[in-house]
């Protein structure tokens, strides 16, 4: 909670320090010709009051669940967030699932085949994933799979003629399944797959590297030898004994990556016209929409706090030597 407060203060201070007048930025041409409009704009958004007062007003509203109104969308920021967050969440979660499955598996294989050809190939692939600019990968993927092969649609979360499923979580795939609308489910899956893969590329590489080094460390431990001395099959040794012991550092990096994915989707959302927080934050940042920016920063802070909590809980579950504080 303290962190939230801290972040909001920081955010607020930063936005007020930002050179550039939001009124001018948003009103554009009208600003220069119509001083009346500028004044009204200022009044409406409370920009004419001194800064500390603005902040107090903001905090007060915050405590009542009111995040203020976005200058650009003219809606409550809270509503904006509620609309855009699930889209990003759907993208983030699906890409994380992909990158975890691929990354951890490749990392384990690389560790077991250390320094052999397989390991080198996996190293190239994983470093490649981390070296490829997301925006370029997205465009190349779109070109190949949409433009040329037409296997997947090009943008948005659903085809224009398809209606979204009844709102349950905001994640179209899950909501469609829950409502039994399989055609909607497949359609949203089609739209989801390409951006999720693009987003997963970097993390897949990251997880592969981390898993490899974590597993290599564990493999040297005596209890692995004990497991083999019991005559257990190698797969059991690897998955029950080795992977479990190697998971704490992997969980840490996955948590960090999840935070990054949830909050760093700007480029992909931009290219795939995905209506998520990434797009929202880009518009807010370039349009100097202060309330929206602060709203996004609060969202970011909350995501990291939640992720840290989950990681701590997972630690305690995996490693019995760790106690829950």
């Amino acid at each position, binding site marked *: 909670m303290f962190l939230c407060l801290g972040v909001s203060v920081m955010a607020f201070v930063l936005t007020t320090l930002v050179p550039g007048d939001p009124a001018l930025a948003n009103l554009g041409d009208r600003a220069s010709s119509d001083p009346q409009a500028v004044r009204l704009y200022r009044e409406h958004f409370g920009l004419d009051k001194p800064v500390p007062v603005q902040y107090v007003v903001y905090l007060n509203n915050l405590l009542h669940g009111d995040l203020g109104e976005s200058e650009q969308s003219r809606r409550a920021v809270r509503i904006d967030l509620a609309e855009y967050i699930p889209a990003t969440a759907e993208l983030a979660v699906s890409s994380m699932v992909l990158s975890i499955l691929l990354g951890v598996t490749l990392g384990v294989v690389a560790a077991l085949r250390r320094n052999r050809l397989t390991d080198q190939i996996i190293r190239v692939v994983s470093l490649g994933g981390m070296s490829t600019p997301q925006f370029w990968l997205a465009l190349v993927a779109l070109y190949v799979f949409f433009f040329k092969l037409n296997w997947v649609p090009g943008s948005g979360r659903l085809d224009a003629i398809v209606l979204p499923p009844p709102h349950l979580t905001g994640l179209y795939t899950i909501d469609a399944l829950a409502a039994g609308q399989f055609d909607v489910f497949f359609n949203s899956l089609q739209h989801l797959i390409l951006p999720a893969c693009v987003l997963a590329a970097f993390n897949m590489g990251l997880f592969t590297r981390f898993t490899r080094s974590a597993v290599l460390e564990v493999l040297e431990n005596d*209890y692995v*030898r*004990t497991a*083999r001395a*019991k005559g257990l099959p190698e797969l059991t040794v690897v998955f029950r*004994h080795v992977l*479990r012991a190697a998971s704490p550092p992997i969980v840490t990096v996955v948590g960090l990556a999840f935070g990054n994915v949830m909050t760093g989707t700007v480029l992909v959302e931009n290219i795939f016209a995905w209506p998520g927080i990434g797009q929202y934050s880009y518009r807010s940042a370039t349009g100097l929409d202060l309330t929206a920016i602060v709203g996004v920063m609060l969202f970011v802070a909350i995501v990291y706090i939640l992720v840290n909590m989950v990681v701590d809980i997972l630690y305690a579950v995996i490693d019995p030597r760790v106690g829950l504080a």
Partner: protein
Amino acid sequence: MTALLSVNDLHVWLDTARGPLAIVDGVSFDVAAGQVFGLAGESGSGKTITALALLGLLPAGARTGGSATMAGRDLLAMTSSARRRTRGREIAMVFQDPTSSLHPMLTIERQLTEHLRYQLGLSAKDAHRRAVALLTDVRIPDPEAAMRGYPHQFSGGMRQRIQIAIGLACEPRLLVADEPTTALDVTVQAGILRLLHRLCQEKHLAVILITHDLGVLSSLADTVTVMYAGRVAESGPTAQVMGHARHPYTRGLVDALPHPEAADRALVPIAGDPAGPESRPSGCAFHPRCRYAKPSCRIAVPPLVRVDDGREMACPVDPLVASMAR
């Protein structure tokens, strides 16, 4: 008495950048059921590698020669999957440091029952019962609660008992204990040794006890084979080998022990450092440190010869002369 395990001319080579290195160089011994067979030597003597060779747990890049026959089958000639099935089931091993040899994140129950269920196909309930019985056998108090616990919640001695229980779970015929008491407090050591002795008798187990500690040897081992630099120096019934050592190395080891009655006399160590596989001298490996060494000792590797009933030793220096010169 018939031998349960018969090791014949065992060799183990490790492939290094400078070519194959002989870690174990022609070791032979027999182990009988219901007996504790001691394998003694300093670090670098190859005793642990010998044990790992028996279990098939040698590191990659290691090759074996010779044979190790148990129940009519040569362990070294078996396929790796057949080998794996003998591990835990027919031969089990208990390692030196119980703290690092137990998985820190798995419950005791899991570590006790997983190979029980895999190797013997027991149901969860049966495995649980069997595990509790095992813990009782090794004298762990409150076995039911212990099952739910984790290794870090137990003391060193308890962890070693748990390791022994894990080793005996599938009722193997041979248990290899590698320095089972070295990592433990002196006060706890005696308990573990007593436990091993009792289990050996009760279950008619064959036990290979690997140690450098002569005190442990004399209290527990029935027979002993002393290794030096990958070869056998001397072997025979423990009391005789320790009491009337014939090989200069064994003699040196025994002499180096402090005697309570002679507390004011200076300790007599063996000069020099133990020879490792990379720095093994030509001929008899011990000759640079041996007080009875003759020029011929540098040239030829002394063969292992029988000197008495059940005793063998590998030193060309006339044993009678050696003991008289003492």
